[in-house]
């Protein structure tokens, strides 16, 4: 299912993470594979510690980094798809109105 600004995601429980020098190491507790996040990825990762809409994450990225909105959105979608594909993040149902 395509990701939109209303899509809500959260970090999966089956992982552990640690920050080092502004970057993040993620370890999948399902398969023991490590993943690395750069500075922007780390900013996003912090935001999805709790369930959040991607639109809110995008706003946080735009506030923190000097980047075009369209470019930021594309990068956010790619990263989120990666996190979902590797079981490091999960979708959560939309928040009730």
């Amino acid at each position, binding site marked *: 299912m395509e990701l939109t600004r209303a899509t809500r995601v959260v970090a999966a429980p089956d992982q552990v993470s*640690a920050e080092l020098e502004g970057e993040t190491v993620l*370890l999948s507790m399902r398969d*023991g594979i*490590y993943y*690395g996040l750069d500075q922007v990825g780390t900013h996003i990762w912090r935001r999805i510690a709790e369930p959040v809409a991607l639109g809110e994450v995008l706003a946080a990225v735009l506030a923190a980094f000097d980047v075009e909105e369209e470019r930021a959105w594309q990068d956010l979608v790619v990263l989120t798809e990666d996190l979902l594909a590797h079981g490091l993040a999960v979708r959560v149902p939309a928040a009730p109105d």
Partner: protein
Amino acid sequence: MYELSDYLAMVEDPVRTPAYLAAMARVIRPGDHVVEIGTGFGYFAVAACQRGAAHVWAIEPNDAIAHGGALAAANGCADRITFVQDVSESVELPRRVDVLIEDLRGVSPLNGRRLAVLADAHRRFLVPGARTIPARDHLFCAPSLWPPSRESHPADAPVALHGVALGDVPRAAARRAIRSHAGVETLLAEGRRWATLDFGAPLAAEHPVSGEAAFVAERDGSLAAIASWFTTELAPGIGFGTGPGEARTVYDHALLPLENPVAVARGDHIEVCVRAVFDGADHAWSWEVTIVPSGGGQVSTQRGATLGSRLLSSARRRRRAASHRPAETPALERMRALLAAVDGTTSLERIAARLAERFPGHFPDDANALRWAGERLAELEEPRPS
């Protein structure tokens, strides 16, 4: 890296060694072929011969194995033991064997590459229905106070020492299993088993080991860690345990710290979930503790993990991330030059001289290059039975 004295301490353990010897007497049948993985200086290999083994292949990467030949000769079984200095996954045996003996545990049975090594041994070394010593290890845990004799709990650690701010170090230090030999008086409830490792069949090292255990606090106290230990069944009816209250062994037990200790009252429910996943070199641990007050107060949950407890290790792990793109480095270039120089005819001395000539900024002289090249190649050369 273990030293010879470490292997001697393991043999001198008054709990571990008698239990292993009794298990060997029970399990080894006359004429059996045996492999021992992690033989150290060969003590159990000799003991296996004394208990009827026709032949023992004794494998050990550590230099302690250099003492094995003399030990075997002194005990009259030199012709029945083949010592091989290497990691077992690089070793070929001339035949499959009836019995596997090993103790690659550390403070936990999930130590280093142990499960991967045993899975490989099952595939390549053992006959169908082979017997293993140990037969199985059981993993236990219990909610624990912070032992008074230990260093301060990371949550109580000073924020600065002698005018130097400690930053995130105490918090990072909490993200690891801490060795302890505290007594049963530190436990808030009796230990419970959360997982079993059965060595009678191949274990898939890549599968996480996880389990849960539920407790009722038997007294009031500050829940500061989850104590973790094991009991082992070496053979039917023969084994030992390493938990608080047991006779102290070389293994001790581990404390998995809670980042912030929680006051619990007698009757409170404590649920513990422990998970360990193999990352190719060792097991990373995570744990989750939920406290449900018996009086209906607020439920609290704490999580911990060993990831990131060692800063250097974290940097190394970052380089092992699937997304990492390895780059050419001077160290890699030196290694490539070394490997390219190996042709089966050129002497190490000549290879080192070429390296010193090509990398004068790194190797001040030939001797320096010789030591470096010798160490690197010693790790890679084929094992030779001694």
